[in-house]
Protein backbone atom coordinates (compact mmCIF):
# COMPACT_ATOMS: atom_id res chain seq x y z
CA UNK A 1 0.00 0.00 0.00
CA UNK A 2 1.40 3.34 -1.02
CA UNK A 3 0.40 6.40 0.95
CA UNK A 4 -0.20 9.61 -0.91
CA UNK A 5 -0.76 13.03 0.61
CA UNK A 6 -2.70 15.61 -1.39
CA UNK A 7 -1.61 19.12 -0.61
CA UNK A 8 -3.24 22.34 -1.70
CA UNK A 9 -5.36 20.69 -4.38
CA UNK A 10 -8.76 22.23 -4.87
CA UNK A 11 -11.64 20.18 -3.57
CA UNK A 12 -12.74 18.86 -6.94
CA UNK A 13 -9.26 17.77 -7.95
CA UNK A 14 -8.55 16.30 -4.54
CA UNK A 15 -11.80 14.34 -4.61
CA UNK A 16 -11.14 13.11 -8.13
CA UNK A 17 -7.62 11.97 -7.32
CA UNK A 18 -8.84 10.37 -4.13
CA UNK A 19 -11.55 8.47 -5.99
CA UNK A 20 -9.06 7.46 -8.67
CA UNK A 21 -6.59 6.14 -6.12
CA UNK A 22 -8.86 4.75 -3.46
CA UNK A 23 -11.68 3.34 -5.55
CA UNK A 24 -10.07 2.33 -8.79
CA UNK A 25 -6.69 1.44 -7.28
CA UNK A 26 -7.67 0.86 -3.68
CA UNK A 27 -5.44 -2.18 -3.35
CA UNK A 28 -2.36 -0.11 -3.99
CA UNK A 29 -2.95 3.44 -2.85
CA UNK A 30 -4.39 5.26 0.09
CA UNK A 31 -4.68 8.97 0.63
CA UNK A 32 -3.27 9.70 4.07
CA UNK A 33 -1.93 12.41 6.27
CA UNK A 34 1.38 14.06 5.63
CA UNK A 35 3.33 12.08 8.20
CA UNK A 36 2.41 8.69 6.78
CA UNK A 37 2.80 9.61 3.15
CA UNK A 38 5.57 8.39 0.91
CA UNK A 39 4.44 10.55 -1.96
CA UNK A 40 3.30 14.16 -1.65
CA UNK A 41 1.17 15.51 -4.45
CA UNK A 42 1.09 19.29 -4.41
CA UNK A 43 -0.72 21.79 -6.62
CA UNK A 44 1.99 24.27 -7.57
CA UNK A 45 -0.51 26.71 -9.03
CA UNK A 46 -1.90 27.42 -5.61
CA UNK A 47 -0.34 30.29 -3.69
CA UNK A 48 0.02 28.14 -0.58
CA UNK A 49 1.91 25.37 -2.38
CA UNK A 50 5.27 26.22 -0.88
CA UNK A 51 3.81 26.37 2.60
CA UNK A 52 2.29 22.94 2.06
CA UNK A 53 5.74 21.52 1.55
CA UNK A 54 7.22 23.09 4.63
CA UNK A 55 7.03 19.92 6.67
CA UNK A 56 8.13 17.47 3.96
CA UNK A 57 10.83 15.04 4.98
CA UNK A 58 13.78 13.91 2.97
CA UNK A 59 12.45 10.44 2.25
CA UNK A 60 9.16 11.75 0.91
CA UNK A 61 8.84 12.19 -2.83
CA UNK A 62 7.23 15.41 -3.98
CA UNK A 63 5.10 15.30 -7.07
CA UNK A 64 4.30 18.76 -8.39
CA UNK A 65 1.09 19.39 -10.32
CA UNK A 66 0.45 22.49 -12.31
CA UNK A 67 0.01 24.32 -15.57
CA UNK A 68 3.27 24.71 -17.44
CA UNK A 69 4.55 24.15 -20.96
CA UNK A 70 7.83 23.04 -19.54
CA UNK A 71 7.64 19.29 -18.76
CA UNK A 72 9.82 19.77 -15.66
CA UNK A 73 9.78 23.42 -14.68
CA UNK A 74 12.35 24.78 -12.31
CA UNK A 75 13.24 22.55 -9.44
CA UNK A 76 10.33 20.19 -10.06
CA UNK A 77 12.00 17.11 -11.41
CA UNK A 78 8.83 15.15 -10.90
CA UNK A 79 6.12 17.27 -12.39
CA UNK A 80 2.65 16.53 -13.72
CA UNK A 81 1.05 18.84 -16.22
CA UNK A 82 -2.58 19.75 -16.00
CA UNK A 83 -5.01 18.54 -17.11
CA UNK A 84 -4.15 15.28 -15.41
CA UNK A 85 -4.82 11.96 -17.03
CA UNK A 86 -5.03 8.57 -15.40
CA UNK A 87 -2.05 7.41 -17.39
CA UNK A 88 0.21 10.31 -16.53
CA UNK A 89 -0.79 10.09 -12.91
CA UNK A 90 0.00 6.39 -12.72
CA UNK A 91 3.28 6.87 -14.55
CA UNK A 92 4.30 9.62 -12.17
CA UNK A 93 3.36 7.53 -9.15
CA UNK A 94 5.32 4.61 -10.56
CA UNK A 95 8.32 6.88 -10.90
CA UNK A 96 7.86 8.19 -7.39
CA UNK A 97 7.59 4.69 -6.02
CA UNK A 98 10.82 3.71 -7.60
CA UNK A 99 12.42 6.59 -5.79
CA UNK A 100 11.07 5.58 -2.41
CA UNK A 101 12.22 2.04 -3.07
CA UNK A 102 8.85 0.36 -3.07
CA UNK A 103 8.84 -2.73 -5.23
CA UNK A 104 5.69 -3.25 -7.25
CA UNK A 105 4.97 -6.32 -9.35
CA UNK A 106 4.55 -5.70 -13.05
CA UNK A 107 1.49 -7.30 -14.54
CA UNK A 108 -0.77 -6.73 -17.46
CA UNK A 109 -3.25 -3.90 -17.06
CA UNK A 110 -6.74 -4.84 -16.05
CA UNK A 111 -9.67 -4.18 -18.34
CA UNK A 112 -10.69 -1.25 -16.19
CA UNK A 113 -7.22 0.23 -16.27
CA UNK A 114 -6.97 -0.01 -20.03
CA UNK A 115 -10.33 1.60 -20.45
CA UNK A 116 -9.54 4.34 -18.02
CA UNK A 117 -6.00 5.31 -18.73
CA UNK A 118 -6.67 7.61 -21.65
CA UNK A 119 -9.37 9.52 -19.88
CA UNK A 120 -8.69 13.02 -18.83
CA UNK A 121 -9.56 13.17 -15.19
CA UNK A 122 -10.12 16.84 -14.81
CA UNK A 123 -10.64 18.47 -18.17
CA UNK A 124 -14.18 18.84 -19.53
CA UNK A 125 -15.31 15.86 -21.63
CA UNK A 126 -13.89 15.94 -25.14
CA UNK A 127 -14.91 13.93 -28.17
CA UNK A 128 -11.33 12.67 -28.67
CA UNK A 129 -10.91 10.58 -25.57
CA UNK A 130 -7.98 8.62 -26.90
CA UNK A 131 -4.53 9.53 -25.71
CA UNK A 132 -1.76 9.62 -28.29
CA UNK A 133 0.01 6.94 -26.34
CA UNK A 134 -2.82 4.40 -26.15
CA UNK A 135 -0.88 2.04 -28.33
CA UNK A 136 1.77 1.74 -25.69
CA UNK A 137 0.98 -0.95 -23.15
CA UNK A 138 1.50 0.35 -19.68
CA UNK A 139 1.76 -2.08 -16.83
CA UNK A 140 -0.40 -1.69 -13.78
CA UNK A 141 -0.45 -3.89 -10.72
CA UNK A 142 -3.29 -6.35 -10.36
CA UNK A 143 -4.99 -6.45 -6.97
CA UNK A 144 -4.66 -10.20 -6.46
CA UNK A 145 -0.91 -10.28 -6.92
CA UNK A 146 0.05 -7.22 -4.96
CA UNK A 147 2.56 -7.64 -2.15
CA UNK A 148 1.33 -8.32 1.33
CA UNK A 149 1.66 -5.37 3.71
CA UNK A 150 4.60 -6.97 5.51
CA UNK A 151 6.67 -6.56 2.37
CA UNK A 152 6.59 -2.79 2.64
CA UNK A 153 10.02 -1.30 2.54
CA UNK A 154 9.04 1.39 5.02
CA UNK A 155 7.92 -1.16 7.54
CA UNK A 156 8.14 0.18 11.05
CA UNK A 157 11.20 -1.40 12.66
CA UNK A 158 9.28 -2.62 15.67
CA UNK A 159 7.63 -5.31 13.58
CA UNK A 160 10.99 -6.72 12.60
CA UNK A 161 11.24 -10.26 13.92
CA UNK A 162 15.01 -9.99 14.07
CA UNK A 163 14.99 -7.18 16.55
CA UNK A 164 15.88 -8.04 20.11
CA UNK A 165 13.09 -8.31 22.61
CA UNK A 166 11.82 -5.01 23.90
CA UNK A 167 10.69 -6.40 27.20
CA UNK A 168 10.68 -3.88 29.99
CA UNK A 169 13.73 -4.18 32.21
CA UNK A 170 13.11 -5.30 35.75
CA UNK A 171 13.34 -1.74 36.98
CA UNK A 172 10.25 -0.85 34.91
CA UNK A 173 8.26 -3.99 35.47
CA UNK A 174 5.22 -3.62 37.66
CA UNK A 175 3.45 -6.73 38.89
CA UNK A 176 -0.08 -7.15 37.62
CA UNK A 177 -2.59 -5.36 39.75
CA UNK A 178 -0.07 -3.11 41.45
CA UNK A 179 0.16 0.58 40.68
CA UNK A 180 3.29 1.83 39.02
CA UNK A 181 5.51 4.31 40.87
CA UNK A 182 4.27 7.86 41.18
CA UNK A 183 5.33 10.25 38.46
CA UNK A 184 7.16 13.48 39.13
CA UNK A 185 4.91 16.50 39.15
CA UNK A 186 5.84 19.65 37.27
CA UNK A 187 4.42 23.15 37.68
CA UNK A 188 1.78 24.24 35.21
CA UNK A 189 3.02 26.13 32.19
CA UNK A 190 1.31 26.56 28.83
CA UNK A 191 1.93 23.97 26.15
CA UNK A 192 5.01 24.99 24.22
CA UNK A 193 4.34 27.11 21.18
CA UNK A 194 7.01 25.32 19.23
CA UNK A 195 5.24 22.00 19.59
CA UNK A 196 1.96 23.58 18.58
CA UNK A 197 3.56 25.10 15.53
CA UNK A 198 5.21 21.82 14.66
CA UNK A 199 1.92 19.97 14.82
CA UNK A 200 0.21 22.63 12.75
CA UNK A 201 2.87 22.12 10.12
CA UNK A 202 2.61 18.36 10.36
CA UNK A 203 -1.11 18.28 10.04
CA UNK A 204 -1.41 20.84 7.26
CA UNK A 205 -3.60 19.36 4.58
CA UNK A 206 -4.64 16.32 6.60
CA UNK A 207 -8.29 16.94 5.92
CA UNK A 208 -8.10 17.62 2.23
CA UNK A 209 -11.63 16.50 1.51
CA UNK A 210 -12.99 17.39 4.89
CA UNK A 211 -15.21 14.38 5.48
CA UNK A 212 -16.43 13.77 8.98
CA UNK A 213 -14.68 10.40 8.94
CA UNK A 214 -11.36 12.13 8.54
CA UNK A 215 -12.15 14.79 11.05
CA UNK A 216 -12.98 12.07 13.54
CA UNK A 217 -9.77 10.18 12.91
CA UNK A 218 -10.30 7.83 10.02
CA UNK A 219 -7.98 4.86 9.88
CA UNK A 220 -6.83 3.92 6.45
CA UNK A 221 -5.56 0.37 6.62
CA UNK A 222 -5.01 -2.62 8.82
CA UNK A 223 -1.99 -2.29 11.07
CA UNK A 224 0.48 -5.07 10.33
CA UNK A 225 1.23 -7.27 13.33
CA UNK A 226 3.87 -9.93 13.11
CA UNK A 227 2.31 -13.43 13.22
CA UNK A 228 4.11 -15.49 15.86
CA UNK A 229 2.94 -18.70 17.49
CA UNK A 230 5.91 -20.73 18.66
CA UNK A 231 6.34 -22.16 22.13
CA UNK A 232 4.21 -23.36 25.00
CA UNK A 233 2.81 -20.41 26.93
CA UNK A 234 2.82 -22.45 30.13
CA UNK A 235 6.60 -22.11 30.03
CA UNK A 236 7.34 -18.84 31.90
CA UNK A 237 10.19 -18.07 29.55
CA UNK A 238 7.98 -18.40 26.51
CA UNK A 239 5.18 -16.45 28.16
CA UNK A 240 7.59 -13.63 28.97
CA UNK A 241 8.44 -13.30 25.31
CA UNK A 242 4.74 -12.81 24.56
CA UNK A 243 4.01 -10.22 27.23
CA UNK A 244 4.77 -6.59 27.87
CA UNK A 245 4.22 -4.28 30.79
CA UNK A 246 1.77 -1.44 30.09
CA UNK A 247 2.98 0.20 33.30
CA UNK A 248 6.29 0.84 31.58
CA UNK A 249 4.74 1.97 28.30
CA UNK A 250 2.79 4.99 27.14
CA UNK A 251 -0.57 3.21 27.07
CA UNK A 252 -0.35 2.28 30.73
CA UNK A 253 0.87 5.72 31.69
CA UNK A 254 -1.98 7.49 29.90
CA UNK A 255 -4.51 5.09 31.38
CA UNK A 256 -3.16 5.62 34.86
CA UNK A 257 -3.05 9.41 34.64
CA UNK A 258 -6.53 9.58 33.10
CA UNK A 259 -7.90 7.36 35.86
CA UNK A 260 -6.21 9.36 38.61
CA UNK A 261 -7.58 12.62 37.24
CA UNK A 262 -11.01 11.36 36.33
CA UNK A 263 -13.35 14.29 35.71
CA UNK A 264 -10.60 16.92 35.82
CA UNK A 265 -8.20 18.41 33.34
CA UNK A 266 -4.86 16.59 33.26
CA UNK A 267 -1.64 17.14 31.45
CA UNK A 268 1.12 14.67 30.80
CA UNK A 269 4.38 15.98 29.50
CA UNK A 270 7.13 13.91 27.93
CA UNK A 271 10.45 14.82 26.40
CA UNK A 272 8.89 16.22 23.22
CA UNK A 273 5.20 15.52 23.58
CA UNK A 274 2.37 16.94 25.62
CA UNK A 275 -0.98 15.26 26.17
CA UNK A 276 -3.84 17.13 27.77
CA UNK A 277 -6.91 15.22 28.89
CA UNK A 278 -10.13 17.20 28.60
CA UNK A 279 -12.93 15.75 30.72
CA UNK A 280 -15.57 17.92 29.08
CA UNK A 281 -15.74 15.79 25.96
CA UNK A 282 -13.54 12.89 27.06
CA UNK A 283 -10.84 13.75 24.57
CA UNK A 284 -7.09 14.16 24.68
CA UNK A 285 -5.24 17.01 23.00
CA UNK A 286 -1.95 15.85 21.59
CA UNK A 287 0.88 18.15 20.58
CA UNK A 288 2.23 15.64 18.06
CA UNK A 289 0.82 13.56 15.24
CA UNK A 290 -0.20 9.94 15.60
CA UNK A 291 2.97 8.90 13.83
CA UNK A 292 5.14 10.76 16.30
CA UNK A 293 3.14 9.44 19.22
CA UNK A 294 3.62 5.93 17.96
CA UNK A 295 7.37 6.33 18.22
CA UNK A 296 7.01 6.60 22.00
CA UNK A 297 5.20 3.28 22.16
CA UNK A 298 7.90 1.14 20.60
CA UNK A 299 9.89 0.73 23.77
CA UNK A 300 9.51 1.28 27.52
CA UNK A 301 9.34 4.90 28.55
CA UNK A 302 12.44 6.44 30.05
CA UNK A 303 12.75 9.42 32.36
CA UNK A 304 11.38 12.82 31.59
CA UNK A 305 7.64 12.20 31.85
CA UNK A 306 5.74 14.41 34.24
CA UNK A 307 2.20 15.04 35.30
CA UNK A 308 1.55 18.77 35.41
CA UNK A 309 -0.14 19.93 38.57
CA UNK A 310 -3.30 21.99 38.07
CA UNK A 311 -2.83 22.50 34.34
CA UNK A 312 -4.46 25.36 32.52
CA UNK A 313 -6.72 24.72 29.56
CA UNK A 314 -4.39 25.12 26.57
CA UNK A 315 -4.90 27.07 23.41
CA UNK A 316 -6.06 24.28 21.14
CA UNK A 317 -4.74 25.84 17.96
CA UNK A 318 -2.73 23.23 16.13
CA UNK A 319 -3.36 20.55 18.72
CA UNK A 320 -4.77 17.25 17.60
CA UNK A 321 -7.92 16.26 19.43
CA UNK A 322 -8.56 12.55 19.75
CA UNK A 323 -11.08 10.60 21.75
CA UNK A 324 -9.51 9.28 24.94
CA UNK A 325 -10.59 5.74 24.20
CA UNK A 326 -9.14 5.93 20.71
CA UNK A 327 -5.82 7.22 22.07
CA UNK A 328 -5.73 4.42 24.64
CA UNK A 329 -6.58 1.82 22.01
CA UNK A 330 -3.98 3.07 19.56
CA UNK A 331 -1.16 3.39 22.09
CA UNK A 332 -1.94 -0.07 23.44
CA UNK A 333 -1.84 -1.55 19.95
CA UNK A 334 1.49 0.11 19.24
CA UNK A 335 2.98 -0.78 22.63
CA UNK A 336 1.76 -4.36 22.48
CA UNK A 337 2.99 -5.11 18.98
CA UNK A 338 1.43 -8.54 19.32
CA UNK A 339 2.32 -9.09 22.97
CA UNK A 340 -0.16 -9.55 25.80
CA UNK A 341 -0.40 -6.97 28.57
CA UNK A 342 1.05 -8.48 31.73
CA UNK A 343 -2.11 -7.42 33.56
CA UNK A 344 -4.09 -10.03 31.61
CA UNK A 345 -4.03 -13.68 32.61
CA UNK A 346 -3.86 -15.61 29.34
CA UNK A 347 -5.31 -18.69 31.03
CA UNK A 348 -8.29 -17.00 32.68
CA UNK A 349 -11.66 -17.07 30.99
CA UNK A 350 -12.37 -13.52 29.90
CA UNK A 351 -15.46 -11.87 28.53
CA UNK A 352 -16.14 -8.46 27.08
CA UNK A 353 -18.16 -5.69 28.71
CA UNK A 354 -18.67 -3.73 25.50
CA UNK A 355 -17.37 -3.34 21.99
CA UNK A 356 -14.75 -0.64 21.40
CA UNK A 357 -15.23 1.99 18.69
CA UNK A 358 -13.57 0.08 15.90
CA UNK A 359 -14.12 2.64 13.18
CA UNK A 360 -11.76 5.12 14.81
CA UNK A 361 -8.94 3.18 16.44
CA UNK A 362 -6.11 1.41 14.67
CA UNK A 363 -7.42 -1.77 13.10
CA UNK A 364 -5.33 -4.91 13.46
CA UNK A 365 -5.63 -8.25 11.65
CA UNK A 366 -8.74 -10.23 12.66
CA UNK A 367 -9.70 -7.61 15.25
CA UNK A 368 -13.40 -7.82 14.41
CA UNK A 369 -13.80 -11.60 14.81
CA UNK A 370 -11.72 -11.56 18.01
CA UNK A 371 -13.92 -8.92 19.59
CA UNK A 372 -17.07 -10.60 18.28
CA UNK A 373 -16.00 -13.93 19.78
CA UNK A 374 -15.19 -12.47 23.20
CA UNK A 375 -18.44 -10.50 23.18
CA UNK A 376 -20.47 -13.57 22.29
CA UNK A 377 -18.80 -16.08 24.58
CA UNK A 378 -16.09 -15.63 27.24
CA UNK A 379 -12.88 -17.43 26.37
CA UNK A 380 -9.35 -17.92 27.63
CA UNK A 381 -7.13 -15.58 25.57
CA UNK A 382 -4.84 -18.52 24.80
CA UNK A 383 -7.76 -20.37 23.19
CA UNK A 384 -9.03 -17.58 20.96
CA UNK A 385 -6.35 -18.01 18.33
CA UNK A 386 -7.10 -21.70 17.92
CA UNK A 387 -10.86 -21.18 17.78
CA UNK A 388 -10.53 -18.55 15.09
CA UNK A 389 -7.63 -20.19 13.28
CA UNK A 390 -5.44 -17.10 13.54
CA UNK A 391 -2.10 -16.14 15.02
CA UNK A 392 -1.62 -15.82 18.77
CA UNK A 393 -0.03 -12.39 18.41
CA UNK A 394 -3.05 -11.11 16.49
CA UNK A 395 -5.21 -12.06 19.46
CA UNK A 396 -2.86 -10.63 22.07
CA UNK A 397 -2.67 -7.20 20.48
CA UNK A 398 -6.46 -6.89 20.48
CA UNK A 399 -6.84 -8.26 24.01
CA UNK A 400 -4.19 -5.81 25.24
CA UNK A 401 -6.02 -2.91 23.63
CA UNK A 402 -9.32 -4.06 25.15
CA UNK A 403 -7.56 -4.25 28.51
CA UNK A 404 -6.31 -0.67 28.10
CA UNK A 405 -9.91 0.44 27.65
CA UNK A 406 -11.06 -1.53 30.67
CA UNK A 407 -13.43 -3.56 28.52
CA UNK A 408 -12.25 -7.03 29.56
CA UNK A 409 -14.25 -8.89 32.12
CA UNK A 410 -12.05 -11.59 33.65
CA UNK A 411 -13.97 -14.48 35.12
CA UNK A 412 -10.88 -15.90 36.83
CA UNK A 413 -8.95 -19.09 36.23
CA UNK A 414 -11.93 -21.12 37.41
CA UNK A 415 -14.30 -19.45 34.96
CA UNK A 416 -15.93 -21.59 32.34
CA UNK A 417 -15.59 -20.73 28.70
CA UNK A 418 -18.84 -20.47 26.86
CA UNK A 419 -19.32 -22.57 23.79
CA UNK A 420 -18.95 -20.74 20.53
CA UNK A 421 -22.42 -20.02 19.17
CA UNK A 422 -23.81 -22.54 16.75
CA UNK A 423 -22.82 -21.31 13.31
CA UNK A 424 -25.52 -20.51 10.80
CA UNK A 425 -26.52 -23.17 8.32
CA UNK A 426 -23.97 -23.99 5.65
CA UNK A 427 -25.69 -21.95 2.98
CA UNK A 428 -25.66 -18.85 5.13
CA UNK A 429 -22.07 -19.45 6.21
CA UNK A 430 -21.02 -19.51 2.59
CA UNK A 431 -22.80 -16.25 2.01
CA UNK A 432 -21.15 -14.69 5.06
CA UNK A 433 -17.73 -15.72 3.80
CA UNK A 434 -18.35 -14.26 0.39
CA UNK A 435 -19.88 -11.09 1.76
CA UNK A 436 -17.01 -10.58 4.21
CA UNK A 437 -14.56 -11.13 1.38
CA UNK A 438 -16.42 -8.56 -0.64
CA UNK A 439 -16.49 -5.97 2.12
CA UNK A 440 -12.80 -6.20 3.06
Amino acid at each position, binding site marked *: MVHVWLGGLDDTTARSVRVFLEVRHSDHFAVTGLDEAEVLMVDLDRPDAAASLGAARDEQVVLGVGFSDDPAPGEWRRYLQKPLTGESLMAALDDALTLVGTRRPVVEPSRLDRGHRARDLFAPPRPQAESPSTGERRSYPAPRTYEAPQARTREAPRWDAERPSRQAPAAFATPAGRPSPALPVAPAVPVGRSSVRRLAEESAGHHTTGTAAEALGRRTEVEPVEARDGGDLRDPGVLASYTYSPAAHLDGLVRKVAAQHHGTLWELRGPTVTLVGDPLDDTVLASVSATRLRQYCGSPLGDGWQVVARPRRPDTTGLRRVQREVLLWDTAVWSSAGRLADTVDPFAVTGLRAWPDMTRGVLTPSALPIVALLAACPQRPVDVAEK*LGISRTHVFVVVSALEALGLLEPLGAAGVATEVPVPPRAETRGLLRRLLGRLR
Partner: protein
Amino acid sequence: MTMAVDHYKVLFTGPVGAGKTTAIRTISDSLPMMTDVAATDATKDRKSHTTVAMDFGVIKLGRSEVVHLYGTPGQERFDFMWEILREGALGLVVLVDNALPDPVADLHHFLDAYQSFIDTAPVVVGITRTDVRPDPPRSAYVSSLAARGLCCPVFTVDARDHADVSLLLQSLLYCLDPQAEPA
Protein backbone atom coordinates in the same frame (compact mmCIF):
# COMPACT_ATOMS: atom_id res chain seq x y z
CA MET B 1 -46.04 -6.20 -1.33
CA THR B 2 -44.50 -9.48 -0.18
CA MET B 3 -40.87 -10.35 0.18
CA ALA B 4 -39.41 -13.78 -0.41
CA VAL B 5 -38.00 -15.17 2.82
CA ASP B 6 -34.94 -16.68 1.16
CA HIS B 7 -33.63 -13.31 0.08
CA TYR B 8 -30.50 -12.30 1.96
CA LYS B 9 -30.82 -8.80 3.18
CA VAL B 10 -29.60 -6.35 5.74
CA LEU B 11 -31.87 -3.73 7.20
CA PHE B 12 -30.92 -0.16 7.91
CA THR B 13 -33.17 1.82 10.18
CA GLY B 14 -33.07 4.90 12.33
CA PRO B 15 -34.55 8.37 12.59
CA VAL B 16 -34.97 10.76 9.70
CA GLY B 17 -31.67 12.20 8.54
CA ALA B 18 -29.49 9.67 10.37
CA GLY B 19 -27.83 8.60 7.13
CA LYS B 20 -29.64 5.44 6.05
CA THR B 21 -29.96 6.53 2.44
CA THR B 22 -26.37 7.74 2.36
CA ALA B 23 -25.00 4.57 3.95
CA ILE B 24 -26.78 2.37 1.42
CA ARG B 25 -25.60 4.58 -1.39
CA THR B 26 -22.05 4.37 -0.02
CA ILE B 27 -21.86 0.61 0.20
CA SER B 28 -23.99 -0.41 -2.78
CA ASP B 29 -22.36 -1.74 -5.93
CA SER B 30 -24.83 -0.04 -8.20
CA LEU B 31 -26.73 3.15 -7.81
CA PRO B 32 -29.42 2.25 -5.33
CA MET B 33 -33.05 2.87 -5.99
CA MET B 34 -34.25 5.75 -3.87
CA THR B 35 -37.78 6.69 -3.16
CA ASP B 36 -37.13 10.12 -1.75
CA VAL B 37 -39.49 13.01 -2.26
CA ALA B 38 -39.44 16.58 -1.12
CA ALA B 39 -40.10 16.71 2.56
CA THR B 40 -43.38 18.36 3.46
CA ASP B 41 -43.75 17.76 7.16
CA ALA B 42 -41.57 18.42 10.19
CA THR B 43 -38.81 16.59 8.37
CA LYS B 44 -38.30 19.46 5.96
CA ASP B 45 -36.43 21.45 8.57
CA ARG B 46 -33.74 18.78 8.64
CA LYS B 47 -33.44 17.72 5.02
CA SER B 48 -34.89 18.72 1.70
CA HIS B 49 -35.85 15.19 0.66
CA THR B 50 -36.95 12.25 2.73
CA THR B 51 -37.58 8.57 2.10
CA VAL B 52 -41.25 7.75 1.71
CA ALA B 53 -41.07 4.05 0.88
CA MET B 54 -37.66 2.46 1.21
CA ASP B 55 -34.12 2.64 -0.03
CA PHE B 56 -32.83 -0.36 -1.84
CA GLY B 57 -29.25 -1.23 -2.70
CA VAL B 58 -27.32 -4.35 -3.57
CA ILE B 59 -23.91 -5.81 -2.90
CA LYS B 60 -23.00 -8.19 -5.69
CA LEU B 61 -21.17 -11.36 -4.66
CA GLY B 62 -21.14 -13.18 -7.97
CA ARG B 63 -22.93 -13.34 -11.23
CA SER B 64 -26.30 -13.94 -9.64
CA GLU B 65 -25.79 -13.77 -5.89
CA VAL B 66 -26.55 -10.44 -4.28
CA VAL B 67 -27.25 -9.14 -0.82
CA HIS B 68 -30.06 -6.66 -0.62
CA LEU B 69 -29.80 -3.60 1.57
CA TYR B 70 -33.07 -2.07 2.67
CA GLY B 71 -33.42 1.26 4.32
CA THR B 72 -36.64 1.74 6.16
CA PRO B 73 -38.46 5.04 6.32
CA GLY B 74 -37.84 7.03 9.41
CA GLN B 75 -41.25 8.54 9.94
CA GLU B 76 -43.55 6.74 12.28
CA ARG B 77 -46.44 6.79 9.85
CA PHE B 78 -44.58 4.21 7.78
CA ASP B 79 -44.26 1.73 10.62
CA PHE B 80 -46.19 -0.83 8.58
CA MET B 81 -43.16 -1.23 6.30
CA TRP B 82 -40.99 -2.57 9.09
CA GLU B 83 -42.86 -5.82 9.47
CA ILE B 84 -42.52 -6.52 5.77
CA LEU B 85 -38.88 -5.61 5.49
CA ARG B 86 -37.51 -7.44 8.48
CA GLU B 87 -38.72 -10.82 7.30
CA GLY B 88 -35.70 -12.93 6.39
CA ALA B 89 -33.11 -10.27 7.23
CA LEU B 90 -29.58 -11.22 8.37
CA GLY B 91 -29.42 -8.41 10.86
CA LEU B 92 -30.21 -4.84 11.68
CA VAL B 93 -28.14 -1.69 11.37
CA VAL B 94 -29.50 1.18 13.46
CA LEU B 95 -28.13 4.57 12.52
CA VAL B 96 -28.63 7.32 15.07
CA ASP B 97 -28.14 11.03 14.48
CA ASN B 98 -26.10 12.34 17.40
CA ALA B 99 -27.14 15.91 16.62
CA LEU B 100 -30.79 15.23 17.43
CA PRO B 101 -32.10 16.34 20.83
CA ASP B 102 -32.25 12.87 22.42
CA PRO B 103 -30.46 10.34 20.23
CA VAL B 104 -30.20 7.68 22.93
CA ALA B 105 -33.97 7.70 23.27
CA ASP B 106 -34.22 7.51 19.48
CA LEU B 107 -32.06 4.39 19.53
CA HIS B 108 -34.32 2.72 22.05
CA HIS B 109 -37.38 3.69 20.08
CA PHE B 110 -36.09 1.72 17.11
CA LEU B 111 -34.82 -1.15 19.24
CA ASP B 112 -38.25 -1.41 20.82
CA ALA B 113 -39.85 -1.53 17.41
CA TYR B 114 -37.52 -4.32 16.35
CA GLN B 115 -37.34 -6.11 19.69
CA SER B 116 -38.76 -9.38 18.43
CA PHE B 117 -36.35 -9.31 15.52
CA ILE B 118 -33.21 -8.56 17.55
CA ASP B 119 -34.10 -11.34 19.93
CA THR B 120 -33.02 -13.68 17.16
CA ALA B 121 -30.75 -11.59 14.93
CA PRO B 122 -27.75 -9.34 15.55
CA VAL B 123 -27.97 -5.58 15.72
CA VAL B 124 -25.23 -3.00 15.28
CA VAL B 125 -25.41 0.71 16.01
CA GLY B 126 -23.82 3.47 13.98
CA ILE B 127 -23.70 6.93 15.52
CA THR B 128 -23.58 9.63 12.88
CA ARG B 129 -22.88 13.35 12.96
CA THR B 130 -20.67 13.19 16.03
CA ASP B 131 -18.55 15.76 14.26
CA VAL B 132 -21.50 18.15 14.38
CA ARG B 133 -22.33 17.40 17.99
CA PRO B 134 -20.03 15.16 20.04
CA ASP B 135 -22.41 14.94 22.97
CA PRO B 136 -23.77 12.50 24.07
CA PRO B 137 -20.58 10.46 23.96
CA ARG B 138 -20.50 6.94 22.59
CA SER B 139 -20.24 5.64 26.13
CA ALA B 140 -23.78 6.89 26.82
CA TYR B 141 -25.10 4.56 24.13
CA VAL B 142 -22.99 1.66 25.36
CA SER B 143 -24.20 2.08 28.95
CA SER B 144 -27.76 2.41 27.82
CA LEU B 145 -27.52 -0.75 25.72
CA ALA B 146 -25.87 -2.64 28.57
CA ALA B 147 -28.81 -1.75 30.77
CA ARG B 148 -30.95 -3.36 28.13
CA GLY B 149 -28.76 -6.46 28.18
CA LEU B 150 -27.23 -5.75 24.78
CA CYS B 151 -23.50 -5.99 24.09
CA CYS B 152 -23.41 -5.10 20.42
CA PRO B 153 -21.09 -3.09 18.19
CA VAL B 154 -21.56 0.66 18.64
CA PHE B 155 -19.37 2.62 16.26
CA THR B 156 -19.13 6.28 15.38
CA VAL B 157 -19.56 6.40 11.63
CA ASP B 158 -19.64 8.74 8.71
CA ALA B 159 -22.34 7.35 6.45
CA ARG B 160 -20.49 8.80 3.45
CA ASP B 161 -17.38 6.84 4.21
CA HIS B 162 -17.16 3.40 2.64
CA ALA B 163 -14.71 2.08 5.22
CA ASP B 164 -16.99 3.08 8.10
CA VAL B 165 -20.11 1.52 6.64
CA SER B 166 -18.17 -1.56 5.59
CA LEU B 167 -16.80 -2.06 9.12
CA LEU B 168 -20.27 -1.70 10.55
CA LEU B 169 -21.56 -4.38 8.20
CA GLN B 170 -18.60 -6.65 8.84
CA SER B 171 -19.18 -6.43 12.58
CA LEU B 172 -22.78 -7.44 11.99
CA LEU B 173 -21.66 -10.51 10.06
CA TYR B 174 -19.10 -11.50 12.70
CA CYS B 175 -21.84 -11.23 15.32
CA LEU B 176 -23.68 -13.86 13.32
CA ASP B 177 -20.60 -16.06 13.15
CA PRO B 178 -17.32 -14.98 14.79
CA GLN B 179 -15.59 -17.91 13.10
CA ALA B 180 -16.56 -16.87 9.60
CA GLU B 181 -13.56 -16.61 7.32
CA PRO B 182 -13.65 -14.16 4.44
CA ALA B 183 -13.64 -15.89 1.08
